[in-house]
């Protein structure tokens, strides 16, 4: 269920990028996509009734019941990268606004000519 929801999020983000010409909204779309993927990654590592993957004296007995720590590590990294990209995208957005005075890609000289 959550898995489908996360895939839906990705598609929603993709649709956002596809349908809008507004730079900020495109960035939001990217963020939604990333969110979706992150959730998806978590679901892959999810184990029902699993424990936090921390080695401690009281969890030794149920060694097979950990949630996958790798997926969580991936998500952490992915979140950080997503943050960087969003920041950089906003910088570009600012630059475009400074240059063309608009956040609309159609008006921002981003037409067909290079």
């Amino acid at each position, binding site marked *: 269920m959550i898995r489908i929801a996360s895939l839906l999020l990705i598609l929603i983000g*993709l649709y956002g*990028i*596809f*349908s809008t010409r507004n730079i900020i909204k*495109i960035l939001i779309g990217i963020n939604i996509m990333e969110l979706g993927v992150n959730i998806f990654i978590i679901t892959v590592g999810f184990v029902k009734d699993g424990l936090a993957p921390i080695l401690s004296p009281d969890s030794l007995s149920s060694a097979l019941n950990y949630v996958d720590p790798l997926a969580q590590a991936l998500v952490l990294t992915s979140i950080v990268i997503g943050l960087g990209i969003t920041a950089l995208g906003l910088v570009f957005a600012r630059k475009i606004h400074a240059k063309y005075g608009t956040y609309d*890609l159609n008006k921002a*000289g*981003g037409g*067909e*000519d290079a």
Partner: protein
Amino acid sequence: MSIAVFLAILIILAAASFFVTAANKKAGGFATVAVSLFALAMVLSMKGSVGGEQSFMYLGFSITTVGWYFSVVMLTAYSMTSFFNPFWMKKMIYPAGYNFLYLVSMAGTIGMFFAGDFITLFIFWETVVWSSAFIIQQGKSRKASYVYYVLSAVGSMATLFAIMLAYSVSGTFVIRDAFTGLAGSPGTALVVFLAFILSGLSKMGIFPFHVWLPEAHGSAPHTFSPVLSGGLVKMGAFIAFLSVTAFPAYEIFGDMLKIMGIPAPIYFLMLLGALSIIIGTLMAIKQEDAKRLLAYSSVANGGYILIGILMLDQVGFAGGMMHLMNHALASAAAFLAIAAVAYRTGTTKMSEMGGMIHRMPVTYLVYLISIISMAGIPPMGGFVSKWLVFQGLADKGLLFIAAAAFFGSIGSFMYVFRPLSAVFLGQLFTRDKDVREVGFFMMFPMVVLTLLTLAAGVFPNIILRVVTEIQKSAGIEPVTLARNTIVTTNGFLDAFRVFIVFGFGFAIAFVLFIVRRKSRKVGLMDTYTSAEFIHTPELLHYSHSFYAPFERLYDKAPDTMNMYKKISAGIAELGGLVEAVFYGGKPAKTIFWIMAAGMVFFLAGGVFR
């Protein structure tokens, strides 16, 4: 000296000529003369060492009679033309580059003719293509160089495909082995044959590749057109030669459908040759520019050479092989004569010249004899070789092709007469009245080539003896030669006797001309115009619209160039579509295509598993 060392020396000398030219243009021009004469002497001296195999690194060479023969033809064109180089240096935009590339392309042709394997052949072939492409652009037209390069590339790529295909089947690049290895699979062999010969066709200017000749020959530097027409075009003949001899075409296609006793693929190529004769002749008749005219005549003559070589028999083959020498001599001489006129008058437009016989009589004679040879009129070399080709065609009963060949022969009277009368005969333009004959240094190569043309017509057996050796090495029966006679099944030709007859006739005509001189010289403007002022004297020139009534018969004929233009426009259009569809400033377009690709992958994974 091994071929590799010889070529290395030539390349080094080419580089040296580059630096000499950079220091002193004229000296650089003379350097090309010295180097090309040296190369000619070296190759001539190699006659004895025929039959050797050599290799150097990954290059393989094989010294064959046919390679030797082609090299001699080529180097004659190169070395004779090089005499003009010193005097044209000041017109070149890159004189040093010109001289360097001139010698590099020369070395390339030698390497190609002596190649023992296909890789070597291809390497040198391409070397000649790019070096000559960079020379041609120093002439009148940039487009000419482009057209030349692209059509050469069409041939080169096809040949590379053939080479690699043959390699994948027979596992070797050695010329003979690679082709004989195909004997087991006629289907592959057919593809290899047609693809391989394509570069030869494009180089020789066989229809539909003929469009580059008028462009390139007509616009190349005047000192390079003789080499192009006299020399480089013959590289195509070499490829054609390999296609029927090294590639045992008649044996491999022996079981295929035969037309008039010739295997269909070969007959098809002969038809292309016949078409080239017709088109070359008709187009030559139309031309205003003397060099373009000669270029179209090269198309026609390429047709004769191709047909002759493809016959691979006793007589016609000998004719084709001999004709390439004759055409090289005559066409180089004719282009040089036009270059000499252009040197003095600065134009190659026929309607802008006239009466040059009074000013440049030697050049006139050179031109006269060359075109007589090209038209196949006795007693010049061209007559003997065309006669042999006709004999071969008649022997085999190849009606249509023979008709085309005869048509071309008659048509050539029309087109050779035009520059003759327009440039040399007729009235002298007033602005040309101070024109002088060219100096000895430029006259020398023209005279040598002319004498050679004459010699080939009077003593054809000198050349034919080499041709018989080639025929023996190709495993066909050599043409029968008596002392000074060529014997065929339909008759015999004693060229010397023909020469005597023609010489006698000429002498009588000359005496009559001297004794009963009735003509009166009039100026071009010496005419009655009803007080009308003449703005353009060219219109009064009698070569203006020379063959207008005849040309009108076919002036609606489609131009092959349009086909290439359409292909080119088509590619550009596709490019435009690609740009519009895939590239732009906005992400949406790309996202759409990514999703489309995703669907394709999904289908590929699910439906068509």
